[in-house]
């Protein structure tokens, strides 16, 4: 019998999924602690959705094991899980509050209670007037909100959101971020996939980077960023002098500006050398690398570029 520590919400061990001989997920390991906001970061086609579907029990892995809230049978934990798929959908003829109640009922919430909560939640989100409207009568944004409320109406312990920001305008993205934080504040584990680094950087404590069906990095956001040295941006009055020995030899100035990784010896020896060597410091800043830089260094330029293209496509679709 496999032991899964109670502080782990989701565990995957070497899970593999093939479709028609093509490997979609290639031996992924995941361990997601309870109560955290966890981001799965990668471009479209990297294997994020397939991984989430396997974790949820929608499809079974060809190899490996997965545990959802301690169980190898994810569907048996469905009443404690909320799931928002990438492809949003609701029954068009259902009334909005009924759609929320139905999604709760699927996961074991009594229908009457679901209806009551559905109305209340819509009221709280400023959609009280739309509660009795059919889904087909709602705007796209309102329908997405209804589906999101349906995902959490049964007060789950774990929420899994597949590309939740995709298709949302900036206002609704902000609302969603606040909702995710509010759920995490209540102790709920939130896992979401995204191809927008900024969302992961703002929300997540931990991330997994997915590329080509594998996970080249999993851990804290700060750990990913710490893999790169801080970047020094320096402007000097002089272009030469004894202080040059403190700057990496391959660093060339752009006018009077220098950009280089902070030497391993740290800030103090660098500052001392610049001052004592009469560099004539005009400005100096030391920047910690962002998650984007870390992503590029971990997943590679090509994957990062693909992800930027996906994000741009999303924006174009939203604008359209």
């Amino acid at each position: 019998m496999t032991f899964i520590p109670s502080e782990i919400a989701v565990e995957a061990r070497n899970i593999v999924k093939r479709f028609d001989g093509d490997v979609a997920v290639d031996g992924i390991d995941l361990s997601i602690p309870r109560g955290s906001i966890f981001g799965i970061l990668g471009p479209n086609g990297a294997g994020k959705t397939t991984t989430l579907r396997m974790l949820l029990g929608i499809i079974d892995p060809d190899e490996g094991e997965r545990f959802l809230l301690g169980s190898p049978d994810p569907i048996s934990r469905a009443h404690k899980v909320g799931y928002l798929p990438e492809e949003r959908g609701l029954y068009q003829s259902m009334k909005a509050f009924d759609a929320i109640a139905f999604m709760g009922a699927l996961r074991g919430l009594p229908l009457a209670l679901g209806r009551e909560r559905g109305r209340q939640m819509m009221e709280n989100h400023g959609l009280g007037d739309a509660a009795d409207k059919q889904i087909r009568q709602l705007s796209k944004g309102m329908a997405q909100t209804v589906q999101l409320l349906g995902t959490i109406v049964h007060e789950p312990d774990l929420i899994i959101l597949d590309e939740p920001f995709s298709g949302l305008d900036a206002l609704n993205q902000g609302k969603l971020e606040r909702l995710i934080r509010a759920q995490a504040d209540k102790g709920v584990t939130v896992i979401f996939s995204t191809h927008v680094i900024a969302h992961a950087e703002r929300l997540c404590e931990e991330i997994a980077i997915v590329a080509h069906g594998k996970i080249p990095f999993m851990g804290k956001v700060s750990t990913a960023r710490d893999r790169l040295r801080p970047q020094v941006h320096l402007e000097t009055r002089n272009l030469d002098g004894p202080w040059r020995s403190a700057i990496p030899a391959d660093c060339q100035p752009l006018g009077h500006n220098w950009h280089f990784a902070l030497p391993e010896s740290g800030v103090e020896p660098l500052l001392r050398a610049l001052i004592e060597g009469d560099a004539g410091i005009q400005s100096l800043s030391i920047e910690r690398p962002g998650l984007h830089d870390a992503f590029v260094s971990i997943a590679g330029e090509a994957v990062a570029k693909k992800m930027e293209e996906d994000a741009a496509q999303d924006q174009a679709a939203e604008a359209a």
Partner: protein
Amino acid sequence: MRETIRASFVIARRDFTAIIFSKSFFIFLAGPLFPLIIAIAAGGLGKQVNQDIDRPIIGVALNANETAAIVAAREKLVANLGKNGVPELLQLNGVDPDDPDIASQLDKAVRPLTAILSGSLENPRLTGSEQDVRRWQGRMALLSETALSRPEPVEVEAQVVASTGSATKRNRLATAQGGQIILILLTMILAGMVLSNLVEEKTNKIIEILAAAIPMDAIFLGKLFAMLGMAIVGITVWATLGFVGLSLVSSGMPNLPPPAVGWPLFCVLMILYFSMAYLLLGSLFLGIGAMAATVREVQTLSMPVTMGQLLVFFLAAYSVTKLGEPVEWAAVLIPFSSPFAMIARAAQMDNLWQHGVALIWQAMFTLIIIRFSVMLFRRNVMKSGNSGAKKGFLARLRS
């Protein structure tokens, strides 16, 4: 199991209310107009079965010489009138031609007799039900005249009895045929609707929410039972309207020939076998329909599926007169034709245990089909990034 039943109920409730409270349900209720037309068109099949049912056999209780003469006379007449024009004759050995209790021989013969010709060729007597005697009196006179080789007419005395084994058998066959046709028509118009039942979830992209929340078996079961519930509501409405209509145009319900198991049990079995026929064909259609990605694909599939249904129905209809023969056993054992064959048995045979076995057999196959459909659906349709949906129907089946 408990969770599957609970989840099935959630799905069934949603589907049932969505259908019942839709405007299109009223159009559905107008549906019996179509089966009426089909029933008229299906008269050809009924006629064939009627010919099988209506194979009259006249027992002959004459002395040896006269028996030989009437058999020879029949051969002559068959050559002129054809087989259907002259009833088959069965010689009743050891029966006194003047037996006053000749009617008792009607149910004793090795084959069910329509009537018995006794007495002599000069003064023949035909014993049977009023309807049969009236029908065959003229032919028996012609046979006697031919056997005697004389032009003077022979008068056949009529001896009418209240009921005969042959009449009972024929009545039960009529009930079997009627029950089977009702079952076939109801299944045909209702089970096909299940074919498109998962398309709404797939086109509205709800299927993933359902698949992540409840066992896939529960989705299939819930949908099947919702449609069954809707079908039963429809049948109840139609039956009530039919009853009211009959009451208005006539003095009440027609005096239908009773089935072997009796009317109350026959009605219960009709409901049970309809449910099983519906669940069996419905689970198959749901599985096939689940593999289709678009409404167009479902429309394309509906024709071969309807033809498949017809094959099953023809097998069951053909076997109704072949009780106990291999073809009838095949219809009983093949799960899809089993409910139709069994309702025909209920009309003709009074032993009940066979219905219990048949219902278990049919229920077992329903579950097997659902499991198999779910397995195919999970393997071929629930793929990431719509890769499953982008493939053609056959490619999805093959993969």
